[in-house]
């Protein structure tokens, strides 16, 4: 089976700053893969390149749609979403002032197509669509554990719930690949555990998950494979165990000599 996402030699420069240099790795269908690295390593930049928010300076990003790889580097974010890549943001970006249910309904946007006239005259097809959107949005809320909270205002929810809602909104776009940017940040251990459970259930629906995460418990607990980047370069890929013990990774996180100190 083809990898769902192939990142081939991607670089990104911001003026003189080389945020990413020659990053290459594949993501297989239906795996949970972690992207780790110290702060400022370029993880979010890589996300943005895949999601279409940034255009890679060079290199290719191929996303497999119905068995065919499609080049998505430089495509507009709304196109990328329509192809089946959804994401969450490091600093939660909900539609703060809208209702929880509307947040999820907006996520459904790209899978429907009613237009101005449909909206104005409420044609039968439009009505059917609205019912479908409402039903699927409720279903997704239930799936992430926010059942019955649709009428609340997004920004009034607790932090952990906002994270869940953001995942719900991403799931609403029917993604094949879900990219989570530090989903466990700011969560207590119990919330983190239920998040891990949620990610497993998402994968069980056949969705591939790529996550940036600093919480090593989460990374070790659910990732099947881990990609490590540092200073915008690939450091290694491997199984969580391999990565955890690798001197280069420890050095990247803790500085030169840290490995020796850890050994001693």
């Amino acid at each position: 089976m083809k990898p769902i996402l192939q990142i081939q030699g991607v670089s990104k420069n911001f003026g003189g700053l080389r945020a990413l240099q020659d990053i290459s790795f594949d993501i297989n269908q239906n795996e949970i893969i972690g992207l780790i690295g110290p702060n400022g390593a370029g993880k979010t930049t890589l996300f943005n390149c895949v999601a279409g928010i940034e255009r890679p300076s060079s290199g290719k990003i191929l996303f497999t749609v119905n068995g065919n790889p499609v080049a998505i580097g430089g495509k507009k974010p709304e196109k990328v979403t329509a192809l089946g890549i959804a994401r969450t943001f490091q600093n939660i970006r909900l539609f703060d002032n809208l209702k929880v249910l509307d947040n999820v309904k907006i996520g459904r946007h790209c899978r429907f197509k009613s237009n101005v006239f449909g909206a104005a005259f409420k044609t039968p097809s439009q009505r059917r669509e609205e019912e479908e959107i409402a039903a699927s949005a409720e279903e997704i809320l239930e799936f992430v554990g926010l059942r019955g909270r649709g009428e609340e205002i997004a920004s009034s929810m607790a932090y952990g719930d906002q994270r869940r809602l953001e995942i719900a909104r991403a799931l609403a776009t029917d993604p094949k690949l879900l990219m989570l940017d530090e989903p466990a940040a700011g969560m207590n251990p119990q919330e983190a555990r239920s998040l891990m459970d949620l990610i497993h259930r998402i994968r069980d629906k056949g969705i591939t998950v790529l996550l940036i995460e600093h919480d090593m418990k989460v990374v070790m607990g659910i990732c099947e494979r881990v990609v490590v980047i540092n200073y915008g370069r690939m450091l290694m890929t491997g199984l969580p165990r391999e990565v955890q013990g690798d001197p280069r990774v420890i050095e990247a996180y803790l500085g030169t000599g840290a490995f020796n100190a850890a050994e001693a």
Partner: protein
Amino acid sequence: MFTQQLVNGLTIGGIYALIAVGYTMVYGVIQLINFAHGEVYMLGAFFAATFIMVMGMPFYMAFILAMACGAICGMLLDVIAYRPLRRSPRLACLITAIGMSIFLQNLAMLIWGSRPKPFPSQSLPEWFNTTWVFSHFRLTGFHLFVFGVTIIMMVGLNLLIKKTRFGKAMRAVAQNKTMAALAGINVNKVITLTFAVAGSMGAAAGLLVGAYYNSLYPTMGYVAGVKAFAAAVLGGIGSVPGAMLGGIVLGVAEAMGAGYLSSLYRDGISYGVMILVIVFIPAGFFGVVIKETKKSI
């Protein structure tokens, strides 16, 4: 005719430049289109005329005092209208700016009446009327005065921005308000002073235009304001040299357009230039492209 239109264009363009720097400086520090800036310009003209007619002041003194009043108006505008909204969304600030613009316009109408008034031209110094006739054009003392004032102010403003502590503080605030505040700069004070500088130059421009066309009316700020804004955009919003150049280019384009195309669309040329620039080269001559999306993730 070409040379004459060029002279006229440079004269009026210099005045646009004086107003345009006001827009650009304010935009630079707080990212607000200060729609009411055109009204400060209008008030400058009316203040000067009032000083001359009611108080019998000599022209130069009225000029200086009008500039001082313009500075005060600018500061009041900021303190009363904009400062309370520093942390509000842009839409709120823009709506306030529009509201202030309309308010001041009508206040002027209430005070001075809505009909155009002549500028007290008898107060203008003698040498303004001296005319030199060249082979292709005529030049008056008034032209020279406008050029002189424009050049002095532009040079002065550049020195102010580049050489003084205030200029440094202003650039710092424009770059990053939080960091500027951490570095011990009183951000609000710098912003208010920026409004003062902008207001004084706007008032000077208003006085010059009033005297040049010999006509003052409460809505004069509205057209001039948009034109000057167009000049600021043309130069690249946020860039002071850009605003100067933009003003002059726009003034010349307008004079040429009015001379060769159609004088009916004199104002239309500015609007047209502005729309085209915004659509095709939003960064203007010296500016930075402003994108709101794709940022800050």
